[in-house]
């Protein structure tokens, strides 16, 4: 078995951290902690991208890393904090399913993703190929988090964290998407966040709450 280069080991470590943070987010009930976990996830993502850039001499990945760092560690968490303060929704959030069950489903999903990633990893020629399974697991777990949360803000955090997973998948499978695409996605996420913020205010205006069950009334009448 060939020795894994040092930088690749660090990447693997960061990937493991990413997965761990995903599980932490899945288990976290407090909204503010959720935002902090999201920022940490962004940080580990930016770090790992920078190390990939260093290890494989792909200069455009430095840009991606910088962009991720600014956007996901500072800008988006700051926007979320401000939203939470303005909407005054700092209390704990209840999930639709209790936390232990969610974690169990999460483990099943991780196994599924790893299983799925094996054939793709064999085809890929990147040093980071072993982390593809983790990236997919992150996407799945974020998706699960969106499904199980009842309030609007945790769902949005789930959505943003899913984008993190996708970004990581792109980095590990093909050393990142073209810079144009990445810029576009980053802008999408930012604009999406802003629009969703507006929506939150509208939803609260209408229903005096951010509980999504009120939206069920919007269904067309029978």
């Amino acid at each position, binding site marked *: 078995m060939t020795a894994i280069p040092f930088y690749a080991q660090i990447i693997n470590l960061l990937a493991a951290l990413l997965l761990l943070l995903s599980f932490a987010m899945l288990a976290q009930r407090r909204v503010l902690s959720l935002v902090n976990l999201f920022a940490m996830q962004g940080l580990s993502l930016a770090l790992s991208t920078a190390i990939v850039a260093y290890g494989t001499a792909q200069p455009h990945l430095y840009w991606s890393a910088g962009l991720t760092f600014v956007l996901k560690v500072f800008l988006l968490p700051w926007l979320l904090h401000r939203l939470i303060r303005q909407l005054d929704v700092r209390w704990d959030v209840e999930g639709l399913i209790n936390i232990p069950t969610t974690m169990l489903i999460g483990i099943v999903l991780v196994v599924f993703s790893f299983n799925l990633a094996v054939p793709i990893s064999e085809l890929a020629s990147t040093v980071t190929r072993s982390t593809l399974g983790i990236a997919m697991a992150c996407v799945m777990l974020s998706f699960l988090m969106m*499904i199980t949360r009842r309030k609007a803000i945790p769902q949005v955090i789930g959505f943003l964290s899913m984008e993190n997973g996708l970004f990581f998948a792109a980095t590990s499978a093909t050393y990142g998407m073209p810079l144009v695409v990445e810029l576009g996605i980053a802008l999408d996420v930012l604009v999406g966040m802003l629009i969703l913020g507006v929506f939150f205010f509208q939803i609260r205006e209408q229903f005096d709450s951010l509980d999504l*069950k009120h*939206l069920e009334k919007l*269904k*067309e009448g029978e």
Partner: protein
Amino acid sequence: MAIDGLLLTLTAIVGWLVVGALGLSRPRDLRFISHILFPAGAVIALLLAAGAVAAIASPPQTRILALGLPDLPFHVRLDALSAFFVLLLGAASAAISIFSAGYFRTSEGTPPGAICFQYHAFLAAMALVLIADDAYLFMVAWETMALASFFLVTTEHRLPEIRRAGFLYLLIAHIGAIAILLCFGVLQGGQGDYTFGAMRAAHLSGGWPTAAFLLALFGFGAKAGLLPLHVWLPEAHPAAPSPVSALMSGVMLKTAIYGLLRVTFDLLGTQLWWWGVVALALGLVTALFGVIFACVQTDMKRLLAYSSIENIGIIVAGIGLAILFKAYDKNLIAAIAMTAVLYHALNHAFFKSLLFLATGCVLHATHERSLGKLGGLIHRMPWVAWLALVGTLSIAGLPPLNGFVSEWLLLQAFLFTPSLPQSFVNMLVPVAAAALVLAVALAAYVMVKFYGVVFLGRPREANLENAQDAGTLERAGLIYLAAGCVLLGLFPVTVIGLIDPVNRLLVGAAALHPGLGSWLMLAPLNPDRSSYSPLVMLVVIAAVVLLTVYVVHRAYHGRVRRAPAWDCGFPAQTPQMQDTAEGFGQPIRQVFEAFFRMERELPTPFDREPRYRVTVEDPFWHWLYLPVARAADRLARLVGFIQQGRISVYLVYSFVTLLTLLAMVR
């Protein structure tokens, strides 16, 4: 000096867009728009028409524009076929623009500047459709045309029924556009090159040419108003302002004819004989259907809309005949049929525009579209009435006006049919010729009704006494179109000489031959069997009329006695005793009762306030459109079942889909 027709066309397109943009810059300045912009648009149109006349006979010109997407530039090309339709566009829209200058005024709906922009964008888009040389530019221009005309139709967008009519039009236009897009997809033959040049070179195997033809017939038929996609016409035309109706009916429908000709005769290398039979049958059914429904209409613009359906039917029948002859290599007769098609398209652009504009004048003067409330307008609006008479006689197909020439040519083409090798077709053709003659005769009946009820007799309503004749600019537009109808009728040989390059391009033969006929005498194929000289006809008609007037005048001169009319025992005659539109159409309604969905309320003899009410509906709504709409509704309800209203459930849907797909691709 040779004129670069293509450059001229492109300049005209840019010019129209500039005029439109100027209108948009001063949207409420009615004087500026009507006294400067619309006349400027008309001048551009006239120049375009003059350039197109020169371009018909010159060899095709091509150009690649530095517009479009990267690596996908716009190709344009001006050959005889394009040039002929550009001529039609320029010649007809010049008159309509002049008329519009006097017609549009400030209203509740779209401001005049926006109308000016939409109108000129519409013209520019039509010109672009005609010169497009790749599917990409063609579709862009085609959709621009549909959108511009949609906004023009919904000028009075505050009225819900007008929005509804506009929506119906847009819907059918889109269905048609999808078919056209698929048609181009078939035509490019899997090479991925969407220029028309590549489509001409592409070799399609098996059933693909047929698929392309049927898609083109469907797609362009939706725009032209072929059965069963005609339902937008009778809704959109009454909704639109009259110049827009004129432009849509007179010119836009012809772009669909252009597209059909382009695909069938140019892009598809060979034609199959049974395509001709399909087009012929569809065209004749459309013509008959349109004219029968025109007979029973009581709204003058709906009547004209159904009459447009009829004329498009005749044109498509002619195309079918041309395909049939071309498929059997009878290029000479195919050229006659093709001449009839193109001639009729040109004629229809003139007389239908004239009539729609005349209805616009009537509408402005009386605020009334219903035939039952008009009448006697020839005394109040003599200019409009006499000019409309020219249009009426033309569309009714009376010599020596233009409608007769094209219909006569088409009948000639029918009469030559027995030389075909297919006995089945030979048996079919007499029936088709009879149907054509029936449609043409009924069209004359429709026009007698239209003209008689609107302009003749006595006014049916009191406020008609105050009707004002058309203004100077409107009059100028009408005179131009009426003069066009007369000239197109009087000099058919010259016109056919103009059309012949198109014939040579499409069917490989010319309709005119040296030695047969002269500039005075039109004699296709064989002067012994048939010939027609409109000038001689005019002279004879004029001589007979003058002679009769003279004789009557001489014979009865001095013996005229003015006295109360013999009043049949009725001491007083009121306008209510005149024949109405319903009454005039009643025999036709009885004879063709099976075609209509009719609801009738007849009063009993004992009614204190007797009321007679009859509504005639288009059966296609019930046969085709409502079932489709109901099926779509049912399907939507079925799908609506999975709409739970809970975001989590929706997320689960996509999550499960994702997992399933991932598990499947593994």
